[in-house]
């Protein structure tokens, strides 16, 4: 607006963010170099010991693997399904607003509630899924099936978000481009491949960043749906860290696990920034 400094208006926000977000991050790094058992008030500096222990901890590697599995599969399927639904909805039709509202409902429902809903659907004895398929599968109790089951819940819950963003991206693509391409003889697939996809790519990238960072910290779904089981096949980094922190109360080692999860976020961000820079060239 003018030359006046607006810094004093931002101060409350900055103080709060520094105190409740930045300080805890620094503190968790500090904690990760300590042996800290909360109940006994033990706190001792031990250097890299927690991290060295982590390297040899097979349960950590298992959780890391599960988190990568969950993130890669759920995010790619969400974007694929979201793109298909967005393309379907990208036209004027009666009840457009209502359709959009109904699609948003899974997104608005608390993750805990959706996980409970699906737990009942998956139920081996009385679940409607087995009834509809005429099967007797123990979806949440079989090691190979529990993770796909959890991924399905995540896809159901977050595809609406993807649809809404992609739809907004589709709607700013100028109609003339399609008409010109059609005049040049482009078919439906060619239109999608050479007009829609390249122009939508920046939005797809934003969606990928949002969804990947969100999926990487997955906690609610697996905590409620499977509790990390069976045989830790659905135990993710966040869930393992939570258990070490609040069930065995090892704040030092749990903090080291949290720091690694945090570093993963940094890695994912750098990865996407590099891709988008390369894309612009």
């Amino acid at each position: 607006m003018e030359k006046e400094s607006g810094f004093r208006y931002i101060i409350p926000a900055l103080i709060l963010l520094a105190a409740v977000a930045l300080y805890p991050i620094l503190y968790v790094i500090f904690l990760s170099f300590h042996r800290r058992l909360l109940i006994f008030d033990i706190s001792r500096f031990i250097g890299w010991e927690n991290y060295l222990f982590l390297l040899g901890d097979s349960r950590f590697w298992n959780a890391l693997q599960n988190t990568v599995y969950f993130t890669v599969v759920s995010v790619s399927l969400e974007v694929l399904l979201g793109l298909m639904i967005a393309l379907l909805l990208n036209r004027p039709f009666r009840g457009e607003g209502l359709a959009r509202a109904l699609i948003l409902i899974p997104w608005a429902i608390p993750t805990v509630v959706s996980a409970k809903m699906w737990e009942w659907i998956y139920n081996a004895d009385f679940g409607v899924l087995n009834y509809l398929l005429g099967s007797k599968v123990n979806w949440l109790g079989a090691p190979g099936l529990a993770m796909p089951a959890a991924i399905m819940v995540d896809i159901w819950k977050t595809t609406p978000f993807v649809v809404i963003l992609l739809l907004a991206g589709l709607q700013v693509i100028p109609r003339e481009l399609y008409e010109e391409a059609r005049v040049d003889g482009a078919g439906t697939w060619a239109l999608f491949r050479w007009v829609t996809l390249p122009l939508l790519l920046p939005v797809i990238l934003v969606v990928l960043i949002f969804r990947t960072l969100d999926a990487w910290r997955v906690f609610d779904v697996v905590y409620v749906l499977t509790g990390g089981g069976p045989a830790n096949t659905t135990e993710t980094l966040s869930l393992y860290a939570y258990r070490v922190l609040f069930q065995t109360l090892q704040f030092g080692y749990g903090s080291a696990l949290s720091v690694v999860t945090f570093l993963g976020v940094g890695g994912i961000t750098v990865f996407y920034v590099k891709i988008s820079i390369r894309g612009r060239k």
Partner: protein
Amino acid sequence: MKRTLGFYLLLLLVGFYCLGPYGWQFLTSLKPDGQLTQLPPLFPERPTAIHYISLFREPTFLRVILNSALVASLTTVLSLLVGTLGAFGLAKLRVRYKAFILGFILSTAMFPPIATVSPLYVIIRALGLRDTWWALVLTYTVFSLPLSLWVLTNFFREIPDDILLAARLDGCGSFQTFYKILLPLAAPGLFTTLILVFIFSWNEFLYALTFTSTPASRTIPVAIALFPGIHELPWGDIAAASVVVTIPLVLLVIACQKRIVEGLTAGALKE
């Protein structure tokens, strides 16, 4: 554009996919316990309200709803208060190192909750705030700030500088300009932010699970995750509870679909 039968069939399929699980939960909530273990029939033969009645007879359930409503409302008010001030500074005034400050604000949105939950737990315990609303209100306010600052800044930028400048020339101070001119003009943006922050606070789970320990401050997601039941889960009651706590969100989404879409896309697509 063609609107063929195929299109509407596909639309119906998408609708069924999105609403089916919720619909099934609703049907489940209407079945007496004896029928829950029988399939078929899919639909309840004699629908019953017994699960809803037992739910509302349970004093802790009402308490938990009250907790969630209060925590989410307080959070929304505080987040909007701090957020509008900050967004005004960022959108309309001169700020040094603006890019750096915006970068810092956005990066806090990427902190995984698991990385901050343990130090915050230590702090909250030290302050004696464990198992209180304030532990959650403080945490939610801060972690909703990146969202509200970002969305509000985008909305404020769209308000023409000329209008604000005219107010300044009439002798309004910057704060007066902010709350007398800018805020009323940005009302739709405030409403959008309000909905997004409310939904975030209503649904949050990890902090709530960690910072609360009794029904005194427990919120809905925690109560549903820890639903009492030792051997067999009371599926009818859980279904009824799920339906009850989701109804406000469903109504909100249907009533404010445009605003929500606007907020989500403003947050993500404008750079």
